[in-house]
């Protein structure tokens, strides 16, 4: 039987020893600090040690490692390049850019995937049987008129091809926008770093450096994401993806129908009918119900514990401070009173137009 914490501790000492030696040796001259690999290996070892090598748990911890450990490893690497040497804000940003690439936003958003939320790339892979043929077909073929016995099928295939092209263009535009936001984020990062060049305002830890990057990236994101430009590009991406999904679903449904399997359309149609029938039934029940019951009560489950025995017990009892309130009079209805009250009740409901306060409402708290 293994002792995971101790095993990992021994292994980690070895890795971090390497890491520490690499840092202590000299001012690093290379982009890839020798200890960085050890750092990553330590994190991998941790994932295995914590998960006990169990497949399911390892994948969970893999997410943890990816979303926290990998960032820490990269930041250690970044900071190590400038530890104990003269540097500027620009140097740091250049090094960070080299590590993350020109479009870190794209990479980050690409990481937001999971079961039930396949990225379009993953989703495209699933849709390959229907998309594969399109690549060979030139876009020019998509506009040709369809005719003959299979004209409907040809048109479906053409619609799918057009949708795929539209989606590719939309994705390209979205990635381009993300690249622009990424550049803004780098510029913002540099400016925030420059503000900390003076002694006394310097950044003293890897975590503080990461926090500053996050601030810069979020500032750039907020500015872009509230823009008309983002609204337009994001909507086109979503709409194009939906059109493409719809076209693929139609093809898949045709294939299912050929195999005698029910498709989405058929099930939706059944569900729509059921929902509508249910509404009609409720309407009829409501219309047919005597005025002394409410529709809700038909479905009421047994009353909560200690129900008030009679209506009068519930109604007549005055609220007294610090005394228990009456339990619900579950077996009695106010419906008999409610309609009367309701008739007088809503003078407001007779109004045809919205009513605005006639005087300014002072804030009361």
């Amino acid at each position, binding site marked *: 039987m293994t002792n995971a914490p101790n095993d990992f501790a021994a292994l980690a000492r070895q890795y*971090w020893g390497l890491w520490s030696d690499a840092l202590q040796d000299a001012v690093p001259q290379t982009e890839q600090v020798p200890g960085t690999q050890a750092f990553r290996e330590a*994190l991998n070892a941790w994932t295995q040690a914590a998960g006990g090598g169990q497949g399911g748990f390892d994948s969970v911890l893999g997410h943890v490692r990816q979303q926290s450990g990998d960032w820490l490893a990269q930041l250690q690497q970044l900071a190590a390049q400038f530890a104990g040497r003269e540097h500027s804000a620009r140097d740091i940003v250049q090094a960070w850019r080299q590590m993350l690439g020109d479009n870190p936003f794209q990479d980050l958003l690409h990481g*937001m995937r999971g079961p039930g939320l396949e990225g379009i790339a993953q989703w495209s892979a699933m849709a390959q049987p229907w998309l594969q043929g399109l690549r060979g077909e030139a876009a020019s073929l998509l506009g040709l008129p369809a005719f003959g016995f299979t004209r409907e099928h040809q048109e479906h295939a053409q619609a799918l091809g057009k949708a795929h092209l539209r989606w590719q263009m939309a994705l390209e535009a979205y990635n381009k926008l993300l690249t622009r936001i990424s550049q803004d984020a780098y510029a913002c990062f540099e400016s925030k770093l420059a503000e900390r060049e003076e002694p006394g305002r310097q950044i*003293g830890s890897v975590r503080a450096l990461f926090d500053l990057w996050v601030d810069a990236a979020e500032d750039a994101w907020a500015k872009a994401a509230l823009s008309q430009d983002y609204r337009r590009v994001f*909507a086109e991406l979503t709409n194009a993806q939906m059109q493409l999904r719809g076209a693929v679903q139609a093809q898949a449904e045709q294939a299912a129908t050929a195999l005698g399997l029910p498709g989405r359309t058929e099930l939706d149609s059944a569900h729509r009918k059921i929902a509508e029938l249910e509404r009609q039934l409720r309407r009829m029940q409501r219309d047919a119900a005597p005025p002394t019951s409410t529709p*809700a009560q038909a479905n009421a489950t047994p009353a*909560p514990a200690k129900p008030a025995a009679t209506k009068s017990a519930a109604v007549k009892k005055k609220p007294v401070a610090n005394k228990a*309130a009456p339990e619900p009079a579950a077996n009695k209805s106010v419906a008999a009173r*409610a309609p009367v009250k309701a008739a007088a009740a809503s003078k407001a409901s007779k109004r045809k137009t919205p009513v605005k306060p006639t005087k300014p409402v002072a804030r009361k708290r």
Partner: protein
Amino acid sequence: MTQFFGPLNITAQSLADDAGKLQAKLVAGISTLRAMDDVSFGVTPREEVWRDGKVVLYRFKGEQPPTARVPILIAYALVNRPYMVDLQSDRSLIKGLLARGEDVYIIDWDYPDRSDRFLTLEDYIERFIGGAMDYLRGAYALDAVNLLGICQGGAFSLCYASLHPDKVKNLITMVTPVDFHTPDNMLSNWNREIDVDLLVDTLGNVPADMMNVTYLMLKPWRLFAQKYVGMVDILDDKQAMEDFLRMEKWIFDSPDQAGEAFREFSKQFFQENRFVKGGAKVGNREVHLGLVEMPVLNIYAEQDHLVPPDASRAMKALIGSDDYTELSFKGGHIGIYVSSRAQKEVPQTIHDWLAKRAR
């Protein structure tokens, strides 16, 4: 010691020290994570008192019998689960209200599946909220009971209160959007040119993961990277890790959205801003906020990235009530339920406000 200039005051030694601390956290984390049991949530005992299909009305049971005469019905957003207001014993709006003598009910929307795709706003507002309200009115022999709507549930509650002002004694709204077109509303900006018909026709129900990733994208670096980097700090603290995981559950345990209700809500509110511009409809009936004449307590969060304060504050000018009160909470959209400040401020404010109107 040589003084180097630049934004970083980091030395090889300090980096090695940081790495050592990280190592210690990771080592401790192995034991912590392996010792974690299933994280519990939803702590207050409750009992089912009414149901309509999957939708269930629960009554919470406090340690003491309630002293309030009029019960409160809580309606939260369709994207959440009921334990959002009852996460753990020291983070529970429900516990706070019960401890102050309120009689609290909550409507559980459950998880819609594809057979629920055709549920509409009318179903959610008239059939489910309306059904629960009628049940409570009947059970307590009251003409009207209190309604507390949260986020989208607040928008539903406003619709219900406008359509049935005689049935709502007091209306409380929390982080509720009213003006969906304020310039700082990122979610609304993204929604405005989406072809919602195409989206719903294609997807049927809107998957929860799609909703969640949209929320993450509002602050992608903070919510997808920084949060988990920060988690390393608490790897050696079992209690803190349990709290963290409970919040993860809170955030990501989301039902899919019934397609037709999503379609109606997105188009009427996100895209057409009909609370402000008029013409919002539930079924065939038009919603006029001017008819909301009962007392209203509107609670919003100052740092809310989902429902900006101005989106919520717009209610004041639109409703007909001349008994309108605001609570400006120092915190965010989630902190308003789970922060320690919220536990002190929110239930007490609601209780005091209701007590004044119970006399």
